[in-house]
């Protein structure tokens, strides 16, 4: 099992979610996060003085998939989240030791 964390542009969330649902992904967790990479921030103006907004709003999508589905899911997210402009985000993959479904107590791939 692998955990995928994808940092994407907020307005691509719908596309990513729909594309994932289309290939049979049944659940994910999203959170509003802020950050920057090469895109850096931008400057804003308040009462005649400029200031830099370092952190830009992003969405973090987290999901856990079986090893066999990993490549397909990564391709799907990459394609759905891409705009071609700077700041499209990154995807991180890591191993998962254990998964438990709270309601039933199922573990492992059953619980995904």
């Amino acid at each position, binding site marked *: 099992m692998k955990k995928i964390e994808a940092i994407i542009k907020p307005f691509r969330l719908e596309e990513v979610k729909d594309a994932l649902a289309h290939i049979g992904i049944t659940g994910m967790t999203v959170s509003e996060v802020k950050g920057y990479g090469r895109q850096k921030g931008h400057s*804003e*103006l*308040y*009462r*005649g*003085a*400029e*200031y830099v907004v370092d952190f830009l709003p992003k969405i973090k999508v987290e999901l856990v998939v079986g090893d066999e589905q990993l490549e397909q899911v990564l391709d799907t997210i990459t394609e759905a989240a891409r705009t071609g402009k700077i700041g499209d985000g990154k995807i991180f993959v890591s191993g998962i030791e254990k998964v438990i479904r709270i309601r039933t107590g199922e573990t492992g791939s059953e619980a995904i």
Partner: protein
Amino acid sequence: MENFGYIVDTLFALFAMTLIIFMVPGFAMLEAGLVRTKNVTSVLTVNTMIYAVASVMFLLVGYQLAFGGWENSGMSIYAAFLFQMAFVGKTVNIMSGGVSERVRILPIALFTVLMGGFIYPLVVNVSWGADLLAGTVLDLTMYDLAGSTVIHSTGGWALLAAIMIMGPRKGRYKDGKIHVIPASNIPLVVLGALLLWIGWFGFNGGSVGSIASKENADTVALTIMNTNTAGLAGALIAGIFMYLRYRKFDITMILNGALGGLVAITAGPDLYDIHTPIIIGAVGGALVVIAVPLFDRLKLDDPVGALSVHLVNGIWGTLAVGIFAAEPEAGITLLGQLKGVAVVAVFVFTVSYAAIYIINRFLPFRAGDDEQVEGLDVTECGLEAYPEFKRAF
């Protein structure tokens, strides 16, 4: 029907007073929106406390000190009192707004006792009231219908003294650079500014003093119309200036511009024709746009722009009467207006500076750096304005 005029004017004063009291939530919401969320409860507490403290002080000593007695033949004395009382809190509101996010509640409440009970009533005494200075070389001849000087620059001078003694918010000016602290809630800023705008109709309209004749009714309506016009012009010019200079529309500056225009018209809205207020309000709005960055460069940290709105435009509005409505036969001259501005400035600034300096020795006005970092809601009030983690379900 013999008491008709008395009854109508009493009703008018009560109505005007009600409109003016709408400025209490006006100031409160404006300030709550312009400060960071961690200081909102504290700002609202200060607003509520100074309204109560200043008004009670005015009841106990201020009114007597200002007017020399409790009599009024034109309307019920209670209505006359309430109308005058409605103004008191405004003077301190102007001042407390500019020291937001660092001022502690107890010392400012203590200063409000002095402001509501003595400093403001003495200014009223020499301008609208019993006139202690009559016959002396300092006797004020300035025309100030609703208080460009008596209220707005009075609050502004006290604020300047307070800012000079207290210093800026922690982290506002770092290594000679201006660090921007953006507003936390723009909708509240808009609500507050427009409540103030509406309150101004009672502020200036009510100051005509009587509506119970055809002539007076006309004067009241003209006053309110001119008041509104100056606000419109101030908002427009501030918006246009900001756009020309920065290519951006900053709503906080547009609203400050409107309020600047409203302060500027307050000295003589009953004297002008219907077009002059466009010029007076426009200059007021332009002054705000120029003054806000200027005070920042002087390291006078004013989170809400009260110095630019009330002090600068209180002075401009009072002088504007001398420029646009001078009537030497009636005793209205530019020199007389200038003298009024100067006498009030020297008196209020000196007394406020001394009072704040002395109080500050025993009860510091400025919250410590750590308290400011944590937020005054926690350290001063023990109650956060927005306690939920993001939002409640």
